[in-house]
């Protein structure tokens, strides 16, 4: 494979976890819940996926375990913020702190063990095309899933009754409640969906991106996914652009390092974080009405008065 194809391939695998985590959080936020625990759910997904794959010998079981781990974390969050009406910002932070600690404890015996890599799905015929074949049609299944998920979420949110209900709950929970919608129930489902996606994104890291377990291996990707949702102005398709942009920035840092231009590696490693800040600044400044695009009830607690 040519070096350029190799780079493009790496960009796709680096962007996929960002996209998966962000699409889940987008649905969560559309229902009016701000879950800052993406990083914690992701890292738990990563450790659970790695461990399950290692013990069962099946990366697919690993993927399943990572989804369940993300959902379990999200369930704690949903219980606290929706049932006990706790502060969403603080609870999300707690989820991240707990996830980072717990995954470190669980994963201690996994450190240094070789992991299992998720098989690549070659699409017969197309993957043999020169250059574009292996890049577009020879990826692991989750790359395709991430795109399919984005399409499905966009269709679901804007063209189905369920999507209408989710957006209604996120934009005006009082009205939705008056119409007989279970605000708490809808939000719980959306939070769990976000958790499943975050967990899966973490599993992608430890099963496909770098098949091994390293403590704190998410390295802020959960937070970048949160920024991506703001960047996308809560529009699913814009997440693809954002995720691939951020994935590319990270990979280009590595490439520059490998080529050996005289910039210290630490500066290149800090690029994704700096670009995140810049992107937030640009998007917030351009749409000073960014508040208007955010779901109107984002972060607001809801207590049914019966």
């Amino acid at each position: 494979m040519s070096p350029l194809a190799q780079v493009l391939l790496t960009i796709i695998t680096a962007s996929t976890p960002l996209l998966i985590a962000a699409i889940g959080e987008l649905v969560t936020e559309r229902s009016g819940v701000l879950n800052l625990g993406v990083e914690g759910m992701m890292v738990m997904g990563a450790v659970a996926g790695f461990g399950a794959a290692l013990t069962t010998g099946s990366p697919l079981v690993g993927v399943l375990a990572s989804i369940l781990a993300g959902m379990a974390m999200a369930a704690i969050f949903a219980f606290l913020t929706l049932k006990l009406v706790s502060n969403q910002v603080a609870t999300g932070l707690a989820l991240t702190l707990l996830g980072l600690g717990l995954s470190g404890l669980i994963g201690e015996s996994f450190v240094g063990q070789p992991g299992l890599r998720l098989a690549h799905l070659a699409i017969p015929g197309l993957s043999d095309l020169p250059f574009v074949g292996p890049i577009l049609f020879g990826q692991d299944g989750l790359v395709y899933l991430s795109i399919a998920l984005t399409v499905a979420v966009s269709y679901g949110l804007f063209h189905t009754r369920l999507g209408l209900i989710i957006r209604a709950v996120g934009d005006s929970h009082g009205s939705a409640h008056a119409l007989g919608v279970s605000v708490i129930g809808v939000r719980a489902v959306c939070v769990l969906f976000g958790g499943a996606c975050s967990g899966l994104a973490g599993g992608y890291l430890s099963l496909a991106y770098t098949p091994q377990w390293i403590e704190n291996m998410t390295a802020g990707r959960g937070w970048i996914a949160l920024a991506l949702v703001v960047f996308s102005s809560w529009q699913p398709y814009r997440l693809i652009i954002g995720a691939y942009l951020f994935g590319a920035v990270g990979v280009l840092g590595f490439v520059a390092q490998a080529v050996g231009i005289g910039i210290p590696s630490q500066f290149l490693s800090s690029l994704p974080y700096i670009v995140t800040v810049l992107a937030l600044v640009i998007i917030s400044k351009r749409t000073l009405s960014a508040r208007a695009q955010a779901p109107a009830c984002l972060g607001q607690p809801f207590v049914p008065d019966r």
Partner: protein
Amino acid sequence: MRIDLIKRPEASRLMAYASPLLAVALTLVTGVIIFAVLGVPPLKGLYVYFIDPLTSAWSLEKLSLKAAPLIMIAAGLSVAYRANVWNIGAEGQLTMGAIFGASIPILFNSWQSPLTIVAMLLLGILGGMLWGLIPALLKVKTGANEILTSLMLVYVAQLFLDWLVRGPWRDPKGYNFPKSVTFEDWQMLPTFGTTDVHYGVALAVLAAVALWVLMSFTLKGFEVRVLGTAPRAGSFAGFSPQRMVIFAFLVSGGLAGLAGICEIAGPVEELQPVISPGYGFTAIIVAFLGRLNPIGVVVAGLALAVSYLGGEEAHTAFGISDKAARVFQGLLLFYILACDTLILYRVQISTKPKGATA
């Protein structure tokens, strides 16, 4: 059976104090379960974890050294969170404070004066303030979410420190180890008597008391609370939400920076790639456990310091991973947030089906 939350007519003062105690109790119960799972006799585990660190003079010294940075940072964060300003990048501000303060021993190594350490501390505060000012200004000028920007800057600061100690600031006589020169006596915080307890511990308590006075007895404290709970009312009173964002970040960033320089001019004695075991993040838990009250933060800081020390002791006693401490800390925050519900709501457990309760 249904569990319903009934809003109290007014916030329960009793629960405001009982909630953190209840949370600690629940954490201990969970600790028993975790110890049992890990195959450690639970009561012995609890003793080693939470009581042993309090039983000798030597460990009490260590306890105060661990608690000092937590108290310093959390006192500042409690003011910011009261103002509804979410600075979660204290770890980065701590790092920048350490870098700024360390510039004197590294760049002006020969300057020997009683003022050396004072200048280092002031530079540490400045470094933390400047690093905190970035998300604050971005929030005020462009509306960029301060939670995300302040957190991103943690990674940037840590990578910058990593570059410094492996590159330009590496000790030329350090056998290529990634660390700066070791600080001289006059570049270190003085200690109390023959103990290891340095003046930073006193500074932490002083900072907490000063912020308590600010919050309880001054107009500024009133402004913080009004803008935090009722921003519209605050604007009508002529308080500026923008200036409050800057103020909150300067206070919390400055104190985090001070904690950073106190760490390296205290126990650490030099710049290294990693200078803090996550004090900036643990301080978030301390702030909530201390009821976002600077005096409460002192108690909470000591409690969390126990969990750090207990983690080390349990590691040597039973071979339990020292990472268990972080699990306890994370659980504790969850329990606090859950128990805080009881301040505003009563829990009603009814066996009747829905509708019958109305």
